[in-house]
């Protein structure tokens, strides 16, 4: 008998391995998606496996195996287990330097760092959580997944710590709110970006477009102009679903504003309310223009990146990680940088949402339930203004989530994004992260069906509402 289906733990481990090698998923994501996540810094081909023991200065020479591993710092009695997903060598080293700096000041502490590839991390974390044994410090995107862990009592409430010495006030409020549920905060952000249109200035010029669009109907005209010029207007990796869900969510935000979402989320209203149906109708206007590359329903985010990086499509609606992700696959990085432009998601005629309402998210750290107090202190150290400014300088904490760290940003577009995040009138985390996983995935599935033309805008809204009704009311 070779059937071992109900083997949950084994199946999980198999899937874990599978997920680990399944999708090319670089580290540093601005978003947690159960399919290939976007990346702020794609893994380079050559990356040393970290030294299992000993000082980070004794790193082996680069070998082409991006195998994340474990590195231990210090030899104190208090051990902190830290899982992060910065697999890019340069970023991994930055974290190691900070860990080293911390143990110099606190010889009683040992820090054990495990670096994991994004998808592998998610599977491994889920397993650790299900066994009730979370790591002390771990990558988190906030939102529905973290809330689930918080409800199960698996992560520490950081509210008291944040009230000490103004730690909580040092963060940009929007990003911090993504880790806060019912007035309690369970994690802290270390970068926070927003989704907007990244576009190719040269292709826009070629199509005779002088100004980036500021309203939805202008966007549709822009798309038409690009099509007329024989240019693919929009790159979209809709196999992965989350790239397309940005469109629907942003339209819902522009049409119904914060209020519509809050009402639906708190169950006073519903996801079948007019703004959500209209979001689908508006999105359908765009889909009907056929603005995406051939075969976009089967394209992954990786395919999507290649198109944008090599000027084969004029724009993409994507988070702050897009430029660095695209540079990794660009044949001519110079040309990519030269033609790169950004504009916010346009306003929609008749909608109550503002241009300054931002959809975004970023990376942060949560603290496992069994962590020693030193773990919180260490995270406090990691998120200090000095350290965050240093991380911003090297493009890691960009846009930053700590006030004052934006001084370190080198890139003008990132400066603008940081400003917009800091001044956002409404900062909404991606629905597929903010909502409980079952509802978030329903949003992704339903919007994909809209892109494929197999669901009407009403059906999309109703499908999401059905999932919300089942999950949120409990």
């Amino acid at each position, binding site marked *: 008998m070779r059937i071992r289906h*109900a083997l*949950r733990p084994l199946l999980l481990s198999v899937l874990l391995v599978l997920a680990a090698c399944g999708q090319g998923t670089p580290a540093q994501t601005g978003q947690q998606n159960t399919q290939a996540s976007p990346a702020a810094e794609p893994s380079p081909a050559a990356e040393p496996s970290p030294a299992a023991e000993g000082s980070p200065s004794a790193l082996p020479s680069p070998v082409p195996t991006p195998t994340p591993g474990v590195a231990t710092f210090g030899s104190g009695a208090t051990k902190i287990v830290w899982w992060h997903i910065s697999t890019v060598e340069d970023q991994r080293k930055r974290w190691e330097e900070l860990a080293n700096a911390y143990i110099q000041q606190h010889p009683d502490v040992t820090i054990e760092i495990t670096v994991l590839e994004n998808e592998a991390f998610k599977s491994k974390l889920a397993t650790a959580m299900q066994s009730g044994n979370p790591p002390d410090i771990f990558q988190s995107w906030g939102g529905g997944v973290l809330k689930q862990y918080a409800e*199960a009592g698996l992560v520490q409430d950081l509210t008291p710590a944040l009230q000490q010495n103004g730690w909580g006030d040092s963060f940009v409020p929007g990003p911090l709110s993504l880790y806060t549920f019912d007035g309690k905060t369970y994690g802290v952000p270390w970068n926070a970006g927003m989704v907007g249109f990244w576009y190719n200035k040269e292709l826009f010029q070629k199509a005779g477009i002088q100004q980036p669009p500021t309203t939805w109907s202008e966007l549709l005209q822009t798309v038409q102009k690009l099509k007329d010029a024989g240019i693919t207007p929009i790159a979209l990796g809709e196999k992965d679903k989350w790239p397309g869900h940005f469109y629907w969510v942003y339209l819902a935000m522009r049409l119904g504003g914060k209020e519509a979402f809050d009402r639906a989320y708190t169950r006073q209203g519903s996801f079948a309310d007019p703004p959500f149906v209209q979001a689908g109708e508006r999105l359908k206007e765009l889909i009907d223009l056929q603005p995406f590359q051939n075969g976009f329903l089967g394209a992954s985010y990786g395919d999507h990146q290649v198109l944008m990086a090599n000027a084969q499509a004029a724009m993409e609606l994507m988070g702050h990680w897009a430029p660095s992700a695209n540079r990794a696959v660009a044949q001519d990085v110079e040309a990519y940088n030269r033609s790169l432009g950004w504009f916010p998601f346009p306003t929609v005629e008749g909608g109550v949402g503002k241009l300054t309402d931002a959809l975004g998210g970023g990376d942060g750290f949560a603290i496992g339930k069994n962590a020693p107090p030193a773990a919180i202190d260490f995270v406090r150290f990691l998120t200090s203004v000095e350290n965050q400014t240093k991380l911003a300088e090297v493009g890691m904490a960009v846009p930053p989530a700590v006030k004052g760290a934006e001084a370190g940003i080198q890139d003008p577009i990132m400066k603008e994004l940081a400003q917009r995040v800091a001044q956002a009138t409404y900062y909404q985390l991606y629905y597929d992260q903010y909502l409980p996983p079952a509802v978030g995935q329903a949003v992704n599935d339903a919007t994909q069906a809209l892109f494929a033309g197999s669901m009407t805008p009403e059906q999309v809204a109703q499908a999401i509402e059905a999932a919300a009704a089942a999950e949120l009311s409990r």
Partner: protein
Amino acid sequence: MNLSSGSLERAIPRPSAPIRLSRVATIIVFLLPATLAYLGLVLFPIVQGIYYSFFRWNGLGPAENFIGLDNYVRAFSDRVFLSALGHNLLIVALSLLLQLPLALGLALLVRSMVRGRTLFRTIFFLPFVLSEVITGVIWSFIYRPQGGLITWLFQQLAPNAQPPALLADPDTVLYALFVVITWKYFGYHMILYIAGLQNIPAELEEAAQIDGAGRWQVLRYVTIPLLGTTIRLTIYLSVLGAIQLFDLVWVMTGGGPVNASDTMATYLYKFGFQRFQLGYGSAVAVIMFLICFVFSLVYQRYALRRDFE
């Protein structure tokens, strides 16, 4: 494979005295590791999965919300699950009707070669050696509408038409996946057939030829019947494999577009591990398990039994 080859003449000597206790203890000690491994790694998780399938459970903390058979009712009333089940059955049918005959044909072809037999056997077997994930990635590149091999071929034939995006079209995605499945697995079945063919005495086929049987008649009345054991085995493996299909689909399409290529296993993964509905995911796993289990029992009872007696 075929254990009925004559008689096991040498009867095992039976102990005249009753088995002593120490011998029983020895037997138990030697059986223990395998028994424990089997119980711990196979039986216990199966029971655990069945247990969880009666709960509404997100996988965190203990399962407390008992809902009886609701998860099963939900599965069989969900169109997406039923279509995923249908996709599995379609892959089963295509595997039996296309993939296995192809493997058999190639096995006969390789056998009939005077030269290059080993080379071709190796070439045909190579895809099976690749991991599923690597295979999926390679074929994703082949199918890719922008600059993929299929697009290139299409453009040589019809330069002005829009090249097909086979993985992006709900109507073609399953067949496109089936091509990959066939490419990957036919070599494995072919090797089994080659091994089976080697067990057929050449005299039998020669005798048939001398009696005036044509090539097809030899194949139809001598070779295939004598290969029965192997064919029944490959059917068994093929069906079980098709019901459990996961990795290739996951890598290439994620079950999309819009569930058009979902299999039961991708459906299970989406609900169990992405939506954190592990109770429901367990119910789907149990359904898959039961399908495989019942098929195995019936098949072994009626098809495989004579091969092992």
